[in-house]
């Protein structure tokens, strides 16, 4: 059976094959685009791509099987992907999943008999401020209720596709008074993605300044002065990271924007790219100038297909107007930018795994040292920063590092785009200065707790960090203060839980996520997450006394022993929930069932 | 004279003493077993000729792991393993003992093989009649050691 591919797809393949320094890098985008056309990754497609890219068949197969968006079997015409991760769980994702499951019948990822639908329970889609959310193929539908889902399915079946959300729900076009808008200041402008709008609002002025008035050393110095710390989660000072790149090397250097936003509770990179793509491009250009790199990549998670298209349009526009390409702004500086798609893997948000993935391989993390700044993408020095970090760079260059630093607290410069989700009245994205108190964030900015309930716990920085309890709400939200409170600021995904929330269920859902996303490289993470998942599943339905201690012990056995931070990310919230909410675990034992099951306001019931 | 009488008296007493034992024992239960006319009675833990057991579905419990042979201090157990097939299933696991011999001219009935067995396939039975005129007959094959199938083995 010969492989039938459309001329458009073949043309796209040709483009993809020429885009990367290494042929294999084109593999994942080629697979994904081919799957969009054929419906799944067939044996023939694998053989074809192996030949096209000079790979062995098993190398392609390995890659396919790693990524959750790539399927080896056909799905329905509309693939309903229901997010049930914590942020969506808190706002009622389970009934939606249950409804979809019933309407589709049959097992997940299997087409209905008429071939129209298939469904899948997926991990965080990056729509936490619009929770609960669902993706139909690549289209986002947010703030859903069961009747809305029913209506959506009826319309889809009738061939009338309702319009997906134009951009992420929860983004603020009217700033809240407490907000200090730096990177989000262009949100809400009409046609904010266009180059003209961008130029009208300080666009590419920072680049001009960086190219014409500053030396690379000065740029790095300015960023160091700004106290800009990595917005991806670890909070490493960005200027420091740039200064590690060796200056005397014959190898090419690369800039990567890590847009594989997958941390549950985090959806800040999505608006930054879909509403202000040029800000990111400018940030990357400046970073490129600072470390003398001439090639950049934006690694966008596969689910953000429409964001990728916005980015690609912006890049094309920038090339047309010579903000990318050769001799930018007449300065003699060359820079090329490629927008690359992932295919569904949380692990690829880890910088070295992202580089493996960008090289077209399975997203396994790499041994460090050497660090990416010395040996990164294709074995060359590489700077890899989060989208938010890079988006902050133009303002820093334009207005000065000191100005930016002063917006925040000492050693924690600037502002942060916080994604507040969960049981609050106004979930949303708010740009707040570093060090903004958590209590004000919930009560003032996000409009307080929903239904007048009491706050029970807050996850301050995505699901990978230990939870804070209600009596820790006065913590200022900057890296150092949150660390002092025993947690981490992480990616800025603030998930607020009210008094009816079952913390065992939260722990269970978090562990489901890590067990699903563990890459399988190292033993403690691979086996530990799954063991804990199974234990928590069992415990939630009725456990043994020794289980409580054992859950904590197993998590501690993982902590600090895994190959990459994913193991710690799974262990830390678990340990904190077991420690801080031990009474809830004991309550489960006593009653033999989930106490919140009796409460109609319970998270998932 | 007196000494003779005393001697007679003592003899009578001694006889009475002796016969009283006999008399007493006459009315006690018999401990002597009339082997071979009657069957021998064993204590439960008597270590006799081994028995290879079957599981509830009639399959052999032995998976030919060789641990009994390894544990045997006199190397009297010889095994050849083979693989079960879908058509011909002998044991519940992947492998089974194609050959299982115990050389009773060497076995010391120490029970280590029973201790070592991970599947409880081998135990000591109560068989003990091993005498033979030909030493080669002392090598017992699997067929001789195997417990009778309760029902025909599943095929």
């Amino acid at each position, binding site marked *: 059976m010969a492989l039938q591919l459309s001329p458009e797809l073949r043309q796209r393949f040709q483009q993809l094959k020429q885009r990367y320094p290494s042929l294999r890098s084109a593999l994942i985008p080629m697979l994904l685009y081919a799957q969009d056309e054929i419906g799944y990754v067939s044996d023939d497609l694998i053989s074809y791509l192996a030949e096209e890219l000079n790979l062995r068949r098993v190398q392609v197969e390995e890659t396919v099987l790693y990524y959750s968006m790539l399927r080896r079997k056909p799905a329905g015409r509309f693939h309903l992907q229901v997010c049930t991760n914590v942020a969506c769980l808190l706002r009622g994702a389970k009934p939606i999943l249950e409804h979809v499951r019933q309407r589709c019948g049959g097992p997940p990822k299997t087409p209905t008999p008429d071939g129209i639908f298939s469904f899948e329970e997926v991990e965080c889609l990056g729509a936490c401020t619009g929770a609960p959310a669902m993706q139909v193929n690549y289209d986002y539908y947010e703030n859903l209720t069961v009747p809305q889902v029913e209506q959506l399915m009826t319309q889809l079946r009738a061939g009338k596709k309702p319009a997906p959300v134009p951009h992420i729900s929860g983004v603020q076009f009217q700033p809240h008074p407490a907000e200090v808008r730096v990177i989000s200041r262009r949100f809400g402008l009409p046609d904010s993605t266009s180059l003209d709008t961008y130029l009208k609002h300080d666009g590419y002025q920072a680049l001009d300044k960086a190219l014409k008035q500053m030396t690379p050393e000065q740029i790095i110095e300015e960023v160091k002065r700004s106290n800009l710390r990595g917005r991806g989660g670890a909070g490493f000072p960005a200027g420091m990271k740039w200064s590690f790149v060796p200056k005397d090397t014959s190898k090419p250097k690369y800039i990567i924007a890590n847009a594989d936003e997958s941390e549950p509770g985090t959806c800040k990179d999505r608006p930054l790219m879909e509403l202000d793509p040029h800000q990111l491009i400018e940030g990357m250009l400046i970073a490129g100038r600072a470390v003398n790199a001439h090639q950049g990549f934006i690694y966008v998670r596969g689910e953000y297909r429409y964001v990728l298209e916005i980015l690609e349009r912006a890049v094309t526009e920038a090339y047309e107007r010579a903000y990318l390409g050769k001799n930018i702004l007449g300065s003699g500086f060359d820079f090329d930018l490629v927008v690359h798609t992932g295919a569904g893997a949380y692990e690829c948000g880890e910088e070295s795994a992202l580089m493996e993935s960008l090289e077209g391989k399975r997203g396994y993390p790499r041994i460090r040292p050497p660090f990416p700044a010395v040996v990164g993408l294709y074995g060359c020095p590489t700077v890899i920063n989060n989208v938010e970090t890079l988006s902050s760079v133009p303002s820093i260059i334009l207005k000065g590092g000191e100005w930016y630093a002063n917006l925040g607290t000492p050693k924690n410069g600037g502002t942060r785009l916080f994604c507040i989700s969960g049981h609050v009245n106004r979930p949303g994205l708010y740009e707040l200065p570093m060090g903004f108190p958590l209590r004000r964030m919930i009560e003032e900015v996000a409009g307080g707790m929903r239904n007048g309930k009491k706050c029970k716990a807050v996850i301050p920085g995505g699901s990978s960090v230990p939870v804070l309890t209600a009596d820790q709400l006065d913590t200022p939200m900057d890296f150092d203060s949150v660390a002092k409170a025993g947690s981490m600021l992480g990616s800025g995904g603030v998930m607020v839980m009210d008094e009816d929330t079952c913390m065992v269920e939260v722990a269970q859902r978090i562990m489901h996520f890590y067990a699903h996303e563990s890459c399988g490289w190292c033993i403690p993470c691979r086996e530990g997450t799954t063991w804990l998942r199974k234990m928590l599943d069992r415990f939630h339905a009725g456990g043994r006394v020794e289980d409580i201690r054992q859950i904590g012990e197993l998590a501690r056995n993982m902590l600090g022993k895994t190959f990459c931070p994913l193991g710690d990310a799974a262990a830390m919230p678990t340990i904190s929930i077991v420690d801080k909410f031990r009474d809830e675990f004991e309550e489960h034992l006593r009653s033999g069932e989930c106490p919140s099951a009796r409460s109609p306001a319970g998270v998932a019931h | 004279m007196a000494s003779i009488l005393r001697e007679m008296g003592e003899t009578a007493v001694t006889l009475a003493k002796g016969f009283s034992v006999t008399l007493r024992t006459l009315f006690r239960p018999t401990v002597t077993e009339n082997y071979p006319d009657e069957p021998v009675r064993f204590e439960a833990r008597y270590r006799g000729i081994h028995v290879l057991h079957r599981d509830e579905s009639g399959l052999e419990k032995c998976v030919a792991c060789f641990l009994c042979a390894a544990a045997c201090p006199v190397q009297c157990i010889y095994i050849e393993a083979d693989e079960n097939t879908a058509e011909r299933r002998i044991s519940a*696991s992947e492998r089974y003992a194609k050959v299982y011999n115990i050389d009773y001219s060497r076995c010391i009935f120490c029970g280590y093989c029973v201790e070592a067995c991970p599947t409880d396939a081998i135990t000591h039975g109560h068989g003990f009649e091993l005498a033979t005129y030909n030493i080669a007959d002392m090598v017992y094959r699997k067929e001789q050691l195997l417990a009778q199938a309760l029902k025909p083995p599943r095929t």
Partner: protein
Amino acid sequence: MGDEQKTVPLSVDGRSIEAPPGTLLIEACKSVGIEVPSFCYYPGLSLQAACRMCLVEIEKTPKLQTACTVIVQPGMVVRTSTPQVHAARKAMLEFLLTNHPLDCPVCDKGGECELQDMVFRYGAAESRFAEEKEHQPEQRFSSVVYFDYPRCILCFRCVRVCDEAMDVKALGVGQRGVRSTIIPNRPDGTLECEECGMCIDICPVGALTSHQYRYKTRPWEMKYVGTPCAHCGDGCKTTLNIRNNQILRGNNRDKTGINGEFLCIKGRYGGDFVHHPERLRQPLVRRHGRLEPATWEEGLDLVAHRLKEITVSAGPDRIGFLGSNRTTNEENYLLQRFARTVIGTNNIDHHRTADYAALVAALGGDTTAFAASGDLARTAAILLIGSDPTHNHPLLAYNIRAAGRLHDARLYVINAREIKLRRQADRFVQVPAGQEAAAVEALLGAAPDLPPDARQELDKVRAALEKESDVIVLFGAEMWGRGVKRLVEFGQKLAGKTRYIALGDYANSRGAADMGVLPDLLPGYGPLTDATLRKKWEQLWNSSLPATPGLNARQMFEPGRLRGLYVVGANPVKTFKLAHTRDGLGAPELLVVQELFLTETAQLADVVLPAASAYEKDGTLTNTCGELQRLRRPLEPVGARSDFEILRLLSYALGKPIPWRTPEAAFEEIRQQVPGYQVSLASLLVGEATRTAPGDGRHADKAAETSPGLIFSSDDSLFTSGTLGRFSEMLNSVPERKLPRSQL
């Protein structure tokens, strides 16, 4: 920069130790006997740091560190046996066992399983895992390889050895997380590969098992005999695992011998030809046109009688001997002495698969220019002309790949075919078939008739080689006679040291030539025409030697040349592609064959004498690089006799007894008399390979005189091995054997 050569001092568990700079901590610990456990770390393969078993405490680092990735630093203080480290190991093993089935009694690996050992040493006594295990049924990847998913601990050794060491990449990793699994390369879930079994050998647990060994026995029930492999010319040491006089598998887990742990399918599983039901167990004598079983006495008497008859009636030169490139040195030495003194003819030859004689002659007595197989890993550059080592010389191909991968050696390949090693080559020059010698002329600067692009490429190869400090030249049967001479001339012009390996096909191809199973050369390549040399041997053997060179192999099959043909361990009908009739062999009236099987040639014989295989006899073999190894006689022959014994008995029957009682006695004479074989007995006896280097330069002018058609390779693939391969069930069972020569 002298400081860099110094060792790095560090402290491990309170002991001050030293290690060369760049050493991995785990290796430094191992070197002083401190065991740091690991699964995924494997010397020679890329680092993985995935199993987390080697976590150790290093002072001034907050977290435990993996000893397999940390490089020793001066003053480092390491602790490998603190409670924290022990707890970590215990935790890792507990994690590993969550999904690992506890079917050790059934598992083939039980008793030699690394996981079993580690749990015994470091693990917890009880399991806390109360959940359901992931299960998938066992898969048969190929006729050799079985995969049991639940047992796999995902150390990826198999995947790495297949990709990095073998350059096959037939195994990959599928799925992710706890469902990660090893996947084979074909869409239907089976393997298409070299079937080398390295993945099975390297697997620390029983996840990958071999068909041949499956559920047969247990490791402690077998005896282990390390002996040179009987198949190709590389002479790998294979440790045969034997129970009840039966080979169950081969491996080389102790990593001794020239091959380390490497073995191909032939060395690992191809020993089963010994047990083939068609093995000859008793002599066969032709009666009434049919071969019928006979006693040894009948067979030997008949042969002696007929040989004597022909010698008396027609003269010794009407009898010819075709030797073997599998029989031992002692047997070859005995055979040529038998032919030359007992019968009195120089009509002796064998199927020559490499022109060793021409190489020895061209080197003119330089005994330092022979490279051993291990030298490949330490050279700066390798030039490969002809042959396809991946198929014909798996060990040398493995070493060539390792040279590039681990030691940055350059590889230059000149070949008529797109052989697989071109993938490792810095330069690959494809020349038309038969033009390999012309390519050498081009290297020498001549302008032979070659395609222009090939000539351009060859110029670049020459330029590159001239810059190399140390070159090993390997050449196949394509290069012979004058071609070899010219190649050596080129090698001598290079700036650096140049060494050579001639690539012959079989286990003792080299030994047959070294021992003088040639019509014109005495043992050690001494020319027969040299009267003083002849005199030496005549005195030694107390017998006169015929002075004129005899018939070569091709000439012997010419019609009417011979009245008696005596074939030892060869199948000329097949190898020389002769008609399958007596006429095809030149219509001799007597045909005697010593063989393991009833080959095409044996079927035509008057008397067939069953011979013992290399695994059933004593003696020595010389591999194609000249490395001498002793056979360890792992098995006892059943019915057959060694060729040595047969020839010796015949010498008695013919009234000219050859006095050596054992191969050892013959070897002692070889060691004293054959140039280049003055080896140390000690290293030979402990099972090491000892280099030989024949160096009789007096024959230089004859080098170009090799007649055409005498040097040719059987061009076996990985799955064929002349006669032996045809009778190996394992080699016959792999589907790849039937595919066009695979270049996976």
